């Protein structure tokens, strides 16, 4: 694999991850539903739950960092710094998707031991959009994991090439 192909592949992974984070943010922020049940109004927004707010913020940080890394990747001086920051951002993305999934699971299935009822029956549009946002966030997290493994491999490839 030539250097050009390697750099192109890393760039491609980063661009797709950026697209996934942007999609996750957009879908989550536009998720909104309300339902009226027996004079009680359920208004479901992403900002009601701190886990979803953290998800949006983390994806925004990851998306902004992706843009910065795309600009910096053309200069090989920063490659090691970018690799270490990639690990930090992968960590941030994985914790945010995990937190959002935990709260969404409670919303969908409830928790009978704690007396928490599921809310997806009353606000199905909100639940569908949140599911879509979580899928996009999950794709972004997996892509970042692949990216750090690939970056480490391509940074060390000269090492392997010289083996007898």
């Amino acid at each position: 694999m030539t250097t050009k192909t390697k750099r192109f592949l890393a760039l491609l992974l980063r661009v797709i991850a950026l697209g996934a984070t942007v999609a996750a943010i957009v879908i989550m922020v536009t998720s909104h539903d309300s339902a009226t049940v027996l004079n009680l109004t359920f208004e479901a927004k992403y900002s009601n739950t701190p886990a979803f707010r953290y998800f949006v913020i983390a994806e925004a940080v990851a998306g902004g960092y992706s843009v910065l890394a795309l600009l910096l990747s053309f200069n090989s001086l920063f490659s090691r710094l970018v690799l270490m920051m990639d690990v930090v951002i992968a960590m941030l993305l994985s914790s945010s998707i995990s937190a959002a999934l935990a709260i969404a699971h409670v919303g969908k299935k409830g928790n009978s031991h704690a007396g928490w009822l599921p809310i997806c029956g009353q606000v199905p549009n909100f639940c569908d959009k949140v599911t879509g946002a979580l899928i996009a966030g999950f794709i972004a997290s997996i892509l970042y994991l692949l990216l750090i493994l690939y970056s480490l491999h391509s940074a060390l490839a000269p090492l392997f090439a010289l083996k007898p």
Partner: protein
Amino acid sequence: MALQNGGKTEGEHESVPFSKPKGRWLLLTVRIVAFLATASATIVMALNKETKTLVVATIGSTPITLTLTAKFQHTPAFVFFVIANANASFHNLLMILVEICGNKLDYKGLRLVLVAVFDMMAVVLASAGDGAATFMAELGKRGNSHARWNKICDKFDSYCDRGGWALIASYIGLSLLTLISALSMIRLMKPKPANQPTTIP
């Protein structure tokens, strides 16, 4: 190249970072502390259980009691927290063993690379476990008025306390794991090209 001979014998390849004995002991110490932190988080959360008996009604002179239990298995987020921290502590233990007696087993210099790769994956896994448990604990502590979910920490306070301690230990383990991952990656860097030996033809 200095990394060509695979493994590091002490004092030989001095220009690679963390190959001298002092650097290796530093890495080993940080790994041991991280292992203790993640293992204690696993154990504290796995043994987290609280039972409360409430008197619901009284018929005649016999009270009817209701027993409520709070266990960590009730919440999938905490189950994942225990599993992720157990994996992270097992990873730390394995890496400690590889550091101590691994100089002989090496396969074409891949030992350090594999250690770095596994460290990165352990960081991602541990952070996922922490994130899920943090927000689930926050939900249990404050409830969510919009979704009509009541808080449970006022009734089961020692359960919540122990969960909090497990979370703190896990955060310490996670930050140390990040440090270890950075150090492992620094160790893979090529030495300074001041006086490099001739390259392999």
